[in-house]
């Protein structure tokens, strides 16, 4: 009898649901596995990631059971619209959180935001759960993070790719949602001196180009993008100064504060077209700073065999491994290290608000292995890195 069977199942489920509800707050230690069901995101036509984000390694996927002791810290990450498996800074940040609870004990969880109005709700959820550290990812969460931080002064926050003060423009209501390090002592802004790493990439590219020309392009002309391009150009110029060469940089000019931009962070076709035209102008190493757009450039390089790519944010030989044969090197933005450091500071009680700056020195930024680099180039890069850390080589502002 189908009828009775279904009715029974329905009754059982209903009673289970009701029983669970009556049980009050039964908190369970949830294993935070990455979602196994990957349903396509709601169609968001707008840019859903911070501009410079590119594919990266997926979260390690290990269950994060706390060690035997009840110690350790709880970390709650609120993603932006890119979601937890965005192969970008959301994934990278969570990898850092998972590593932190592995070493420190505790639990790392995440909440995915599907709409702008989810940010505040997801933050509130973690506030209600008395999470030790709430990690919010991306500048679009800046307002909601500041609001929650003001309302809950004892709650510790870290926000990726953002730092206060910022009032979202001078027309924001005074004192409403904007803050500063002194006003928001419970928020750590995680920002990155990616130009230091891009400087090394520019130097390496200048040393390795066969044609005497290298190139870069960006998504949109905004500081988080152009900081890569500036550093890259500066690195090439520094090489020219040191070696008396005349390696050209296409696609960016710090003097003009302008360069080549695709205008989006989506179109791999644009990435392909840009790479093609740069190659025609003589470039053989290209650094695309436009997220997945760069994959189009990599595809062109692979097909034509006429150029190599400098990846950004993550090691593209891992995150875009299908193109690893044309990846020259990658400019690393170690969001995971920054989140790990933030978590550690919470655990050892040294947490302080303000700005965390990822640099070569604290491994917040770095350069991936340069493919096919001669040993003298590797040595020069090591020396250059040490000089930048020591301050003997300074980057242009």
């Amino acid at each position, binding site marked *: 009898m*189908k*009828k009775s069977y279904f009715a029974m199942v329905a009754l059982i489920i209903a009673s289970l649901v009701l029983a669970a509800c009556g049980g009050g707050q039964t908190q369970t230690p949830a294993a935070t596995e990455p979602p196994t069901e990957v349903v396509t995101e709601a169609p968001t036509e707008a840019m859903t990631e911070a501009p410079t984000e590119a594919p990266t390694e997926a979260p390690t996927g290990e269950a994060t059971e706390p060690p035997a002791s009840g110690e350790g810290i709880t970390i709650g990450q609120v993603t932006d619209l890119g979601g937890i498996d965005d192969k970008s800074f959301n994934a990278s940040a969570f990898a850092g959180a998972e590593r932190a609870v592995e070493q420190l004990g505790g639990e790392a969880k995440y909440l995915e935001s599907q709409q702008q109005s989810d940010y505040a709700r997801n933050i509130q959820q973690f506030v209600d759960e008395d999470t030790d550290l709430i990690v919010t990812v991306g500048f679009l969460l800046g307002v909601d993070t500041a609001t929650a931080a003001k309302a809950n002064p004892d709650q510790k926050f870290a926000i990726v790719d953002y730092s206060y003060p910022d009032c979202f423009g001078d027309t924001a209501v005074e004192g409403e949602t904007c803050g500063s390090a002194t006003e928001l002592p419970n928020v750590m802004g995680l920002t990155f001196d990616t130009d230091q790493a891009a400087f090394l990439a520019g130097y390496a590219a200048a040393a390795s180009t066969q044609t005497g020309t290298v190139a870069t392009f960006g998504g949109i002309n905004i500081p988080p993008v152009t900081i890569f391009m500036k550093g890259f150009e500066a690195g090439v110029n520094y090489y020219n100064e040191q070696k008396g060469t005349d390696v050209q940089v296409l696609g960016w000019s710090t003097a003009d504060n302008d360069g080549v931009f695709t205008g989006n962070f989506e179109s791999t076709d644009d990435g392909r077209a840009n790479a093609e035209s740069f190659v025609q102008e003589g470039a053989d190493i290209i650094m695309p700073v436009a997220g997945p757009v760069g994959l189009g450039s990599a595809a062109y390089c692979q097909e034509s065999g006429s150029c190599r790519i400098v990846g950004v944010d993550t090691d593209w030989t891992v995150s875009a491994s299908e193109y690893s044969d044309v990846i020259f090197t990658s400019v690393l933005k170690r969001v995971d290290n920054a989140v790990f450091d933030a978590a550690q500071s919470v655990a050892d009680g040294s947490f302080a608000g303000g700005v965390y700056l990822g640099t070569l020195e604290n491994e917040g930024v770095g350069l991936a292995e340069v493919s096919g680099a001669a040993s003298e180039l590797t040595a020069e890069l090591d020396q250059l890195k040490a000089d930048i850390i020591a301050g003997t080589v300074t980057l242009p502002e």
Partner: protein
Amino acid sequence: MTQTATVKATKPKGIGGGTLGQALLVPALAVLSGLIIGAIFILAIGENVLTAYGALFRGSFGSLPALIEGIRVYFSTGENQALVRALYPFTESLVTATPYILTGLSVAVGFRCGLFNIGAEGQFFIGALCSAFVGYSIRGLPAFIHLPLAILGGALGGAVWGMIPGYLKARFGAHEVVNTIMMNWIAFRLSDWLLNGPMQASGFRPVTPNIQPTAELPRFFADPLRFNWGFVLALVMAYIVYWFLFKTTLGFEIRSVGANPDAARYAGMNIVKNFVFVMALAGGLAGMAGSAQVLGVDHWVGQGFAAGYGFDAIALALVGKSHPFGVVLAALLFGFLRSGATEMQSMAGIPIDIISIIQGLVIIFIAAPAIIRWIYRIPTIKTEETVLTRGWGS
């Protein structure tokens, strides 16, 4: 579909015909079936159904013990912290339902006239941008002028965005499905430009400035409760749309055009006028959804602001049988599911995508009631067919 449809001039009430109980039976069973199959998915990914649905329920309604405790604490000590916390889940669900109600109405109104408005997403975005612009650019107005002006701005923006495909349909016979989709793309790209240019707050971020406090839809409670007058606005609009469709001559005309445009034309009704008007109305409602969202909840607009409300609205209108009250119920269902999913995701570690699966299943079951009737052995009742949209050639 046109052939089987009847003009419901004499029977305005009821959602899809029959008594209210009959009308609600299939949707209720559809929700139940959706949850049961959702449970199978949860089991399949190795999680506890009990924990998951318990968290889903708590996340969308709150828990009774917490509420009682909150009330007790409030009356004994005057401390409202616990009470606010207890009320938070329920009010958040209503906040989530608000844009669903208005965009659902938008699509439903179109269906009633035989027009398929896939453009609610774009109209929503345009409405939000217009409201935000009125909200932040005008300063010094008192709230009782500024707020209505901001809402009106959003509604007008959406109305224009809807009216264009309506006019193209009426004047040139260009199909509204194609044109509303095109208008969506124009809205998305236009917003990219606006948020990176003319409407950008100072700094590099693609967001508008915050709106002035005088343009905000007032909230009923203090932070973090975001429950605001937008929800009331949505309910009022639902009633107005109901009244308009079923109690006015113009509403009758619209439904007649939707049921059978040839007959309506023969009866001397102006098809062109109706198409343009209905699309403007639909756009206005979706635009108002954007208004309510920016003025009541977010107070600023950033890239990714429109995240599928307009597309979910199509399903809502189907589930609600294009009846304003049905749409409200369906929107509440979606709101509670979406809102409860946060707690489920956090407490039970269930991917938020499971909610999309449950929603999809509910939609399938409601769109194809025969499945539900077959599973639960419900005898088929003769119900009136509601015209959703006519085919391509019409």
